[in-house]
């Protein structure tokens, strides 16, 4: 009896060691490239001087944070960052899931391949190029959208001077750019789903919608939750490329499109202080952590087995 227990314990230990060894390469890589450089966080609190190095430089307290925290625009860019990102995460996830579900309905593999390949094309177009395309549509004088409006008897809109339209415009652009590519992971997950369940449901007389709701969606929930949580963990970091390029950095649009990353870029362009940029990074990290912990707690209440931790 005792030996059986002992053997079990040894097997247990052996398994754990094996698992640990499987994890080691990743652990080492992260240790070297992510953890080791973390000392850089201290730069946010330092008034860096080259001859003294990072550690010898004088402390700056919270001075480096001033330009951002005291800025009249701090609230605006924070609100924009949070609001827009949150909208993108939700809409993007919902869009990608729906896209994958619809793709699932396509019967022939070669059709799927074709549609999928085409749908990921936008993802590959750099934001600079996307800005040209958007401009071709929204140019007040020659743009396609305005011309269509005029054909229908309306009056063209001066898109690049009206901030109120841009959250929607950016949303559409963001969806166009990401939905195809983002749906791949969900589609892949659906591929791994036991189709027998779907067939059984069909036989039981469930409508398509019911089948989707009760079989496919639950299967996707774990992945969706992880993606959403991870997305929210990065909610304070905006995709600089999109916000800067698609809006062509037009000042009139800042009220709704200026995010933390574009603001910092603009502010530090003239005075590129190492301490200040570190400070902003730290602020972003801290807020991301807070939102993440909150989200994880919310998820725990709803569906405990799917939390990140």
């Amino acid at each position, binding site marked *: 009896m005792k030996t059986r227990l002992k053997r079990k314990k040894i097997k247990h230990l052996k*398994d*754990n060691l*094996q*698992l*640990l060894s*499987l*994890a080691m*390469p*990743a*652990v080492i*890589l*992260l240790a*070297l*490239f*992510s953890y*080791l*450089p*973390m*000392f*850089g*966080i201290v*730069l946010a609190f330092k008034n860096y001087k080259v001859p003294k190095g990072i550690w010898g430089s004088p402390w700056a307290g919270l001075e480096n944070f001033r330009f951002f925290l005291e800025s009249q625009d701090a609230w605006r860019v924070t609100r924009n960052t949070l609001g827009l990102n949150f909208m993108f995460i939700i809409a993007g996830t919902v869009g990608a899931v729906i896209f994958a579900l*619809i793709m699932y*309905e396509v*019967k022939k*593999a070669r*059709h799927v391949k074709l*549609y999928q*390949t*085409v*749908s*990921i*094309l*936008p993802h*590959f*177009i*750099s934001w600079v*190029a*996307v800005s*040209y*395309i958007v401009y*071709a549509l929204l140019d007040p004088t020659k743009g396609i959208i305005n011309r269509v409006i005029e054909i229908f008897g309306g009056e063209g809109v001066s898109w690049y001077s009206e901030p109120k339209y841009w959250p929607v415009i950016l949303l559409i652009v963001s969806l*166009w750019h990401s939905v*195809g590519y983002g749906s791949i*992971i969900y*589609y*892949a997950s659906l*591929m*791994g789903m*036991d*189709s*027998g369940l779907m067939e059984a449901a069909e036989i039981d007389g469930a409508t398509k919608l019911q089948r989707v709701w009760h079989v496919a969606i639950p299967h996707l929930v*774990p992945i969706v939750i*992880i*993606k959403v949580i991870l997305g929210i963990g990065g909610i304070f970091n905006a995709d600089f490329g999109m916000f800067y390029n698609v809006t062509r950095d037009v000042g009139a649009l800042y009220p709704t499109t200026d995010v933390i990353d574009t603001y910092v870029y603009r502010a530090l362009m003239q005075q590129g202080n190492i301490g200040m*940029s570190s400070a902003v990074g730290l602020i972003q*990290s801290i807020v*991301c952590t807070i939102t993440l912990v909150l989200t994880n707690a919310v998820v725990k209440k709803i569906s405990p087995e799917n939390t*990140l*931790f």
Partner: protein
Amino acid sequence: MAQMVKKKRRAERTDLWVHIFFILFGAICLIPFITVISASFSTEADLAEYGFSILPREWDFTAYAYLFENPSVIIKAYVVTIFITAVGTFLGVLFMSMVAYSISNRNFVLRKALNWYLFFPTLFSGGLTSSYIVNTRYLGLTDSIWALILPGLIGVFSVFMMRTFFQQIPDSLFEAAKMDGASEYMIYFKIAIPLSKPVLATVAFATALGKWNSWYSAMLYIRDPDKVPLQYLLQKMMKNIEYLLSEMEHVPGGVDLSQIPGENLRMAMLVVAIGPMMCFFPFFQKYFVKGMTIGSVKG
């Protein structure tokens, strides 16, 4: 009988809508892309005058001629990029799946700890400066091709995706293997991996795409012109434009504008960069697009 016919017709009608949806969506994805390609085949003057269009007003190959002026340089860049993409993807998928497997296993005592360990760096980062210091002074990666492969190899998103997939494999399979005395290694290789081809292919493509497009690390660490990856080469041309443009204000008398590539060149760069990845995609795609008949495992 009537019921069956009705069902079939309804099914066909849904099929029709599905196809219409994808054709429409495909159009709004394809048209901009075609516009970009056509811009790369246009003359700069036409682009300045008339903007973008579906077909070039006048077919012109100067952009590509400029890019491939030095074919040996571009070819070398392709070789470098292919190398770092291939190695990076292979190692990345391997290491990431290994750690994903370990944290998906409920018997692993360090599971929770590793979850945290993996996730923490996505929140807090030391920043560029300290990364640079670590990479150049402590890891000796200056001018090394590994500087383009190793940092950022472990993508936490991907690891957690894979973890979820592994968790969705029925326990019965694992237990059966365990009873047969299989080690964790064997379970990983023989069971988890084969059953997860969709997610592995997805992650592999994402990793490959990331490595293919990366240029910033090259800018920081690579000095040897023989180790320049493709995207960096293209970015250099692009940054040169921006630099020359900003110089125009400060350099009295103006800059030699013939040195500033036009829109057509930028679009050509895009095509040259994207093209290969689009060609690779089907190769990955076949792993996560199967006919409807294949389910995974019946309990």
